[in-house]
């Protein structure tokens, strides 16, 4: 397994396999197993309460919301019903509804994720295996861009989109491509960083052999670097997917007056406009966390790896 966390100096690998018998960092401060478990169980319960609460609220009829707390459903499960979900889904694909917003979120997240992964791989490849001068400077610039807040780019990009529109007739502002472009650009520094670290671990000899055989850069990329880089690319995709899926600010600005919403905008509207009904909020929130949860549980390892790899977003 190659570089995981370049931000920390490499430490010598543990000589013993990691087992439970390993001496804990607490040393002789040995809380009894019971107390430890109690503390951690209490923490886990505390952590689960908000999510469970949200789920239960979405499963209760709205009229009960102001009368009694959701925790009463724990002792009276008969009140739970799927009616809220049925109502939202029965709206079908009406623009601005929850299903349409789900689709819009997908339309933004999937292209953004794919583009970031592909372009990051290409750029990282060029930085690691290219031989052109100035590579290290470019890489440093990208590292510098890692923590640049998107706020510094919002207004000029709006201006750029408008200028592009008057030049070519297509103004990306208020369109899905406009949102995707912005997400790709701000996902690139992290993506390139991740792939760079991974590619750095690939021995150069593997490509050398290919080059001597006369293979072109593109072939080398496709046949050597890309397959080897799949684990890192997977981590990047998962991380990017969840990041873009959960974004609110970029979508709010660049999707603007577009009648279609992302799921996050859909939820946000429920708190701001004249239609704040809690059954919509809770049900919509459950729907919005459903897909990231699936992605998370299916690809947990990759996601955690992505988080660990610098994770300076």
């Amino acid at each position, binding site marked *: 397994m190659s570089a995981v*966390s370049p931000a920390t100096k490499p430490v010598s690998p543990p000589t013993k396999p990691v087992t439970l018998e390993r001496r804990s960092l607490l040393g002789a401060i040995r809380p009894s197993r019971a107390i430890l478990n109690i503390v951690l169980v209490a923490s*886990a319960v505390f952590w689960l309460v908000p*999510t469970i609460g949200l789920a239960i609220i979405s499963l209760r009829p709205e009229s009960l919301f102001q009368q*009694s707390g959701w925790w009463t459903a724990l002792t009276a499960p008969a009140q739970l019903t799927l009616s809220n979900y049925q109502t939202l889904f029965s709206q079908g694909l009406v623009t601005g509804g929850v299903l349409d917003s789900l689709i819009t979120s997908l339309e933004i997240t999937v292209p953004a994720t794919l583009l970031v992964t592909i372009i990051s791989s290409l750029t990282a490849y060029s930085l690691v295996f290219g031989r052109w001068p100035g590579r290290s400077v470019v890489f440093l610039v*990208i590292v510098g861009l890692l923590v640049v807040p998107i706020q510094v780019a919002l207004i000029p990009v709006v201006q750029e989109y408008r200028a592009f529109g008057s030049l070519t007739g297509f103004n990306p502002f208020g369109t899905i491509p406009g949102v995707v472009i912005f997400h790709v650009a*701000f996902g690139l520094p992290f993506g390139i960083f991740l792939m760079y670290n991974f590619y750095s671990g690939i021995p150069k000899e593997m490509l050398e052999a290919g*080059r001597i055989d006369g293979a072109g850069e593109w072939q080398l990329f496709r046949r050597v670097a890309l397959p080897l880089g799949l684990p890192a690319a997977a981590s990047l995709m998962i991380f990017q997917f969840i990041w873009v899926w959960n974004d609110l600010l970029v979508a709010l600005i660049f999707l603007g007056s577009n009648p279609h919403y992302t799921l996050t905008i859909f939820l946000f509207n429920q708190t701001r406009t004249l239609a704040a009904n809690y059954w919509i909020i809770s049900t919509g929130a459950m729907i919005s966390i459903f897909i990231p949860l699936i992605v998370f549980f299916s690809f947990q390892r990759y996601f955690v790896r992505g988080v660990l790899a610098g994770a300076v977003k």
Partner: protein
Amino acid sequence: MAEIGTEATPRARRRAAAVNEGGNPGGGWRDHLGSLAFLAPGAIFLLAITVYPLVATARNSFYDATATNYVGLGNYQEIFSTSSILVTFRNNVIWVLVFPFLVTFIGLVYGVLSERIRWSTAFKTIIFMPIVFSATASALVWRTIFDLDPHIGIVNAAIQTASDWVSPPGLYPVDTSSGQTVAGLAATGVSSAPKDSLESSSTVTAGNSIELGLIGVSPATLQLTGSQTAVVPTQSPGAVTGLVWRDFSPTNPTAKGQVLPDELGFAGLKLTLLRSDGSSAGTAVTDAHGDFLFGGVGSGDYKVQIDPGNFSSGFTGVFWLGAQSLTPTSSLNQTAQALLSVPLVDISMILAYLWIWAGFAMVVIGAGLASLDREVLEAARLDGAGEWQTFRRMTMPMLAPVLIVVIVTMLINVLKIFDIILNMAPGSSQGEANTLALAMYNFGFTGLGNWGLASALAVILFILVIPAIVLNLRRIRG
């Protein structure tokens, strides 16, 4: 492969050098073209959307709201002289001072503790999971948790349950926190008395009855306590009888003081008969019709007291998402208030944000813990170093890089905080909960849009982030 510099001819030397570098001998710009072509897409995106805008924003910050007229430092002056914008600085400071260290500490504790349990994977998954939710969804979840109404917000509900168990509320609670007063219930023949109780305005003697009229309680509440139509009390020798009733009739709103047929009595009221010196001569409880009877009453003048316990409302909820300041700044001028207040809503939001990000800290620190060299620690202990010493002088320094990564990452995260403020703080608290990133959005993209001011805020945000950039560059370089 021969050493560089030992070749016969300069050309061969160059070829060897190129090969050593991993290059193709005879390579030149043509090879670079392939690599550079790979660079192109990324470069276009980054230059267009990240690098150029940085410069453009800096330029825009010196221009006016439509980014067309030069205003010099005008935007910056406005930022530092408007108290509603200074509020954002104060809030960002609060977040930066509190959150990164708190979340790292929690992550460290969980990271260390969870090593020793069998179900550590499950535990870590549970703690880590909230990262996967959008900050928007999480904010809405926590907004419900902190809701003022104990029927909705679980925090207030929990406190209320505990408080009611310790001191149960009365049958007719008067919510003094919302401006209602017990004295406001007094209508006919009743006046307010010390300690939130009521007492009869006039005195009564044994063998007579007294009527006490109250208002301010709805028929719905009375029906819940089992109250029925008020019945005029009959007198009884040697006893003090009376009636406590709702002196309000919708059909006859001006008729006060009479017991009308459609008026209800107050059931279940706890009363005390007071002698003229204030001591108690007995207690009673009103029946379903509001009537009461104090038996075995001697001579003298008595007053009837309606005990304060009837009206205690117990805990009615704390406005956790409100903008009231934890620091006593209400008497200060506006700018001082803006800079020194600590609104309660900030604390609530920090708690919600901890719930989201503690898992991240725990996972990163956990990975760092896993790669620690236990042998070294073991050796130190064998050498006689104490537990705390080992932890302080060996473990922590080894963990330090990881901890710094987490702290810095969270610091940057918190500087840009936006979604959670926008969605969790209720409308009336938005002003006090405002942060730089949120203010930038509000000024730039809501209402008429003031691009100059928003750009200036973005520039300030960028300047605050520069130390992290420098830190990152240092780590990568060295």
